């Protein structure tokens, strides 16, 4: 809540800071929380507002994880806030449980269970669907509160007489004691949220936010990571709801109302959704302004109108929120310093580094057994047969190219091999396993990974952070709940990332955000994302698309170097490159394999010429 705490915390997502830096941030936040009751009254912020801000801030830690870090905008968080709050309040008020912390724990766990149930229904959705559905579920609980559950929740009366906190044999009676009680729980919640965000699970959440499809294709079960984010946000909501009831000695039915979800969203956006302390700062600002406008300036009912205008101006001009913009400002100021020159040098050196460093010609290796085999594969879209009855097999260590004129069904074929799309008929076998309909995530985990025609990168992350996603998938499998260790501590992760950076010649750009890369570099990172899982089989969809002639030459050399020790299939338009690269070529025309063979044979094959030139008799 103090300025230092806010600013230092903004560095928390940087991957390089270890040990003391983190402790310093946390110590600063703790100091800020401890000092607030003595400092903030100077700007006439009341103890009531401070404690409320902390409760909203705690609620918001979960929302920041869900919205800011995972990119899922929920409009129904009130369901968790109300459920956890009412259960804890009910247990305490009716003397079923006397210990406050135990009641809070039970309320939190109940909110988690609810989060799991709702999460299972919404895990496949995102964007506006997610927003609409969560809002509807939030409303559902609001109505349940007034109807079916009113025997427990008191319906429109709420639950009055929630006892003061009892911990062991101590009771907390003063408002300062209450503040510190909430502050301690907030701080513990904050520490946990920081661990989660920096953990491999946190990395996966950011990957989902930036590009869920790509996170899936690099071998991560994204829907499960989304579920984790939802359940975590529910836990924070449930705990905050319980604290609300205890703090007010009264659990209001409005906790379940859309207003709760809405206020949480407003405060989080004001403070900055991408920063864990954003919701706390937003809540402090919102509640402080509320008091100031309504009581001190005597604006009565107009206070919310003015805050509404402020809110719209803020999101229009400061889209990352107060803390988020502060962080951007700090980065900008730093970038203007000496670091700037170094950056330019790096950029300049890219061009030089681009030319060369890959071995010129790898000898064609001995092939192994068949590694990928499609049997009778077809794909229909309604009445249109994009692929019909394709038999296709590739042997281990082969470099195969698939070519064909526009509309031949190459992309469809590619997607079925990669597991992105299930075939309508037929089966695909990879490395001795039937992978038909297994989905791209499992296929990737089995050792076949994909690079796409259009760059599918994690745009808000750096090159290193991008590569971390597939490397973590390789190290941890499709899903793992390691929320406490730092992602960087995963064994051998650094070595794997470094190796991939080396392979695609991006070592000197490792800490550059993806948005600052040149097109050719992005293209190489795109291939790097597929390579980082160390696949046995690499599928490349038009790796040369949109490249300049020079970049093409480099990339052709890159692909040649990649084949060492693995099988590669390239779907490509560029005939010269294909003839130079491939051991064998399959020509796909009108959804069928027309001919297959080594480049020389294909080049002079009359059927191929006919297909490409529109027929001899045309």
């Amino acid at each position: 809540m103090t300025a230092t705490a806010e600013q230092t915390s903004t560095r928390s997502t940087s991957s390089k800071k270890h040990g003391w830096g983190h402790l310093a941030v946390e110590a600063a936040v703790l100091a800020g929380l401890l000092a607030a009751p003595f400092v903030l009254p100077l700007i006439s912020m009341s103890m009531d507002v401070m404690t409320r801000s902390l409760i909203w801030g705690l609620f918001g830690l979960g929302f920041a994880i869900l919205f800011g870090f995972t990119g899922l905008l929920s409009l129904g968080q009130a369901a968790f806030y109300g459920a956890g709050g009412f259960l804890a309040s009910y247990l305490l008020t009716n003397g079923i449980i006397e210990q406050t912390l135990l009641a809070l724990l039970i309320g939190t766990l109940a909110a988690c269970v609810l989060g799991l149930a709702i999460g299972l229904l919404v895990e496949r959705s995102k964007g506006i669907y997610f927003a609409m559905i969560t809002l509807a579920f939030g409303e559902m609980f609001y109505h349940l509160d007034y109807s079916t559950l009113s025997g427990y929740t008191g319906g429109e009366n709420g639950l009055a007489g929630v006892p003061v906190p009892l911990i062991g044999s101590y009771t907390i009676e003063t408002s300062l004691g209450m503040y510190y009680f909430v502050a301690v729980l907030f701080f513990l919640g904050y520490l946990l949220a920081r661990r989660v965000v920096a953990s491999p699970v946190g990395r996966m959440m950011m990957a989902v936010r930036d590009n869920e499809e790509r996170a899936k294709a690099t071998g991560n079960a994204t829907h499960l990571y989304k579920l984790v984010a939802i359940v975590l946000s529910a836990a924070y909501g449930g705990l905050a709801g319980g604290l609300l009831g205890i703090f007010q000695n009264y659990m209001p039915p409005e906790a379940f109302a859309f207003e709760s979800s809405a206020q949480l969203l407003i405060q989080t956006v004001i403070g900055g959704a991408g920063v864990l302390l954003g919701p706390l700062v937003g809540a402090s600002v919102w509640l402080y302004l509320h008091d100031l406008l309504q009581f001190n300036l005597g604006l009565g009912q107009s206070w919310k109108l003015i805050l509404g205008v402020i809110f719209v101006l803020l999101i229009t001009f400061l889209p990352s929120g107060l803390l988020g913009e502060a962080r951007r400002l700090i980065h900008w100021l730093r970038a203007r310093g000496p670091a700037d020159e170094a950056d330019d040098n790096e950029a300049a050196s890219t061009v030089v580094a681009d030319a060369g460093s890959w071995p010129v010609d790898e000898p064609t290796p001995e092939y192994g057994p068949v590694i990928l085999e499609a049997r009778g594969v077809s794909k229909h879209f309604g009445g249109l047969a994009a692929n019909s009855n394709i038999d296709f097999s590739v042997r281990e260590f082969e470099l195969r190219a698939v070519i064909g004129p526009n509309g031949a069904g190459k992309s469809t074929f590619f997607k079925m091999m990669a597991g992105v799309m299930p075939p309508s008929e037929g089966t695909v076998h990879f490395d001795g396993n039937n992978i038909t309909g297994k989905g791209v995530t499992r296929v990737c985990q089995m050792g076949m990974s994909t690079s796409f025609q259009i760059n599918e990168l994690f745009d808000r992350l750096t090159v290193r952070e991008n590569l971390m996603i597939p490397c973590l998938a390789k190290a941890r499998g499709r899903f793992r709940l390691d929320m406490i260790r730092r992602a960087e501590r995963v064994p051998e992760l650094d070595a794997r990332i470094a190796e991939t950076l080396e392979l695609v010649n991006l070592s000197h750009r490792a800490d550059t955000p993806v948005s600052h890369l040149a097109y050719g570099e992005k293209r190489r990172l795109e291939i790097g994302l597929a390579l980082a899982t160390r696949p046995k089989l690499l599928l490349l969809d038009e790796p040369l698309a949109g490249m300049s002639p020079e970049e093409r030459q480099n990339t052709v050399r890159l692909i040649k170097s990649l084949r060492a020790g693995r099988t590669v299939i390239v779907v490509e338009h560029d005939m010269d490159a294909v003839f130079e690269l491939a051991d064998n070529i399959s020509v796909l025309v009108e959804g069928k394999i027309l001919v297959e063979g080594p480049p020389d044979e294909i080049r002079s094959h009359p059927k191929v010429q006919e297909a490409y030139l529109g027929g001899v008799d045309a």
Partner: protein
Amino acid sequence: MLTDLISSLPPWGLVEAQMFNGLQQGMLLALISAGLTIIYGTLGVLNLTHGALYTLGAYAGYVAYQATGSFLTAIAAGALCTLLVGLVLERGIIRYYYNRPDEDQIIVTFGLGIIIVEAIRSYFGGMSRNMPAPDWGQGASQLGFLQYPFPLYKIETIAISAIVLLIFYLVLYRTRLGLVVRAGIEDSGMVSLLGVNVFRAFFVVFAIGAMAAGLAGVINAPITAPTPDGGEKFLVYSFVVVVLGGVGSFPGAVVGGLLAGQIMTLTSLFYPSLSEVMLYVAMALILIFRPRGLFGQAGRT
């Protein structure tokens, strides 16, 4: 056993009356949701001001009715006011958000909704306003087949909603503007390349969608007295309707609206307190068994 069950059922006349109530509410929801869904389908914006625009329409109609005493003027005022506000919102703010993430669009329209609602509250206060039904809507009718007489005005709102929806349909599916709009939904970039100013069509759509909410606000005002927060409920309902019918689908909004109306009124016949909860249960079922909604196209999210 069976006779017990039958005797425990409410009498047919009551069921009939509730189904008519459901039809009336359903048409209203269809109208509101059609506005929401065509804005989303065309502009890709989930418009959270929609509830506030409903409220705005109701209050604009109320003011006009107070001033002139004419209900038709009130309807025109409600429609025109929301149409203009829709134009101003789109040109003034929302168009700057087309290139920002979906979430930002949701948040800004949500903020604009707060401003509209709070402006109304500041001016009119928080109490509900009383808007009488028009002269031509007084009394009740059995329409020749109902067992109980049904309020005439409710029957008329069914007709008005149907006419407005029909006009929407004709504009969307039978005019050049509608063609541009529907093509724009598929691929606005391509439509622009063909030399059509697709964004002009888009802001017209935004205004028309806003007007749908406003119209619903006025014609529902004699049934549910306008309050500043009255629109919020309809915003949530229209989300459910749109999820039921399929996001971006005009027929989906109509069928979803009618379905939602029946679910709520028929449930309230048996378990009055659960009538709204059932709506969300229906939505959950749709999500489990047909996630893209009844009329949603596969692959479009």
